[in-house]
């Protein structure tokens, strides 16, 4: 202890001696410290390309180019939506498969087929069938004169079709002038028409 320290207050001398006392270090501490440092991931260095992509910048386009780009995006969305059904399923190629396997149609050109029903008391009559998705509003029939004859011409592909008349929107009636379809299980009879191909 130096003379300078000996001249100081004993409390200060104690503090000074404590400060000068070498610290006892755990021999494994350095190893643990290095291991902890190695365990830390190295900071990722952003590539120049990434920095270029992420850097905000202003793109200036003339109004015509912007409109064309917007129209293109909308068209892409609309066409994409048409190609894919709403529930995400793509439409099947069933039509092609059926046409390929079918030997009946000599000509696939639709033929106008006349449907006729005498229903004098009906306020409105429509035609439903596999050709219009059994949609009661799709094919209304028109009344000809006062005798209550309702008619409609429908272009049909050659082949077998099942159909029915709907009177006043609720009553289903099989065509009395056509063969009946086997029981539909729904409590109403339907009819069958076979449209022939051009050469049959």
């Amino acid at each position, binding site marked *: 202890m130096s003379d300078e320290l000996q001249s100081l207050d004993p409390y200060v001398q104690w503090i000074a001696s404590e400060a000068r006392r070498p610290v006892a270090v755990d021999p494994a501490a350095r190893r643990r410290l290095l291991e902890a440092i190695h365990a830390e991931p190295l900071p990722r260095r952003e590539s120049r390309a990434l920095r270029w992509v992420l850097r905000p910048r202003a793109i200036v386009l003339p109004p015509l180019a912007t409109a064309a780009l917007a129209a293109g995006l909308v068209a892409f969305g609309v066409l994409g939506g048409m190609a894919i059904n709403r529930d995400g399923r793509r439409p099947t190629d069933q039509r092609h*498969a059926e046409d390929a396997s079918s030997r009946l149609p000599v000509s696939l050109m639709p033929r106008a087929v006349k449907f006729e029903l005498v229903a004098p008391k009906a306020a409105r009559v429509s035609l439903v069938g596999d050709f219009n998705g059994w949609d009661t509003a799709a094919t209304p029939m028109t009344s000809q004169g006062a005798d209550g004859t309702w008619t409609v011409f429908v272009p049909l592909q050659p082949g077998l079709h099942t159909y029915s008349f709907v009177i006043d929107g609720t009553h289903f009636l099989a065509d009395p002038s056509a063969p009946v379809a086997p029981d539909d299980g729904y409590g109403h009879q339907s009819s069958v028409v076979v449209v022939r191909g051009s050469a049959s």
Partner: protein
Amino acid sequence: MSALRRTIGPLTLLLASAASAAAQDSVLPARELDPLARLNVATRYSVEVMLDSAKMLGLPTRVLESTALEGIAKRADGRRIVTQVRLVFRSLRDARAALGLSASTDELTAAAGALRVGITNAELSYLARTRHEKQLTVPLVVLADLVTRGVPRDTASQTIFQLWQRGAADDDFLGLWRGVERDIVSGTAPGVALLNRAREIPTRGSPPAAPPAAPGARPERSENPNL
């Protein structure tokens, strides 16, 4: 200010285009875009499973879809629709097995209808073996109609098969149907009406040779003495 104008113009155009597209989409009825959308979820799932199965088997799915849509139009409940689509699916599968892979969509549909009125697979196979490139659609449609109108099944099938073997054409079968239908409306018993009208149809060409009997095949039919 000019930057604001440049931004607002195209943005307005984009929004207008999107709104126009959305409006066009909403104008189309949902039934046209997806006819089965009118089914509830459970019914639709069951129907689509059968549609997929039919597609895998090469069966005409249009008939099954039409059956489901017919049920919707006739306000049948979902369970009834599924039952009926399943029935048609099975009959199409059996018809394919009876008629073979060469059968057309219309022949399969007509044969499936015939099966549903009680015609057997063996009878269909018999008819298919004697087809000689002729279409089975009209005879099967007429056969199903006759049974539906009350002609005894055996009488109807036997008569149609004999006319078929005699070379009757589609017009013959349709003429037969019209005559029988008129007679039934006039009060004649359906079976009698059929036998009477069948006599009027001339033989067209020589009957086709009987097919060789295959194991398990239907035995050769005896001639209907009433014809």
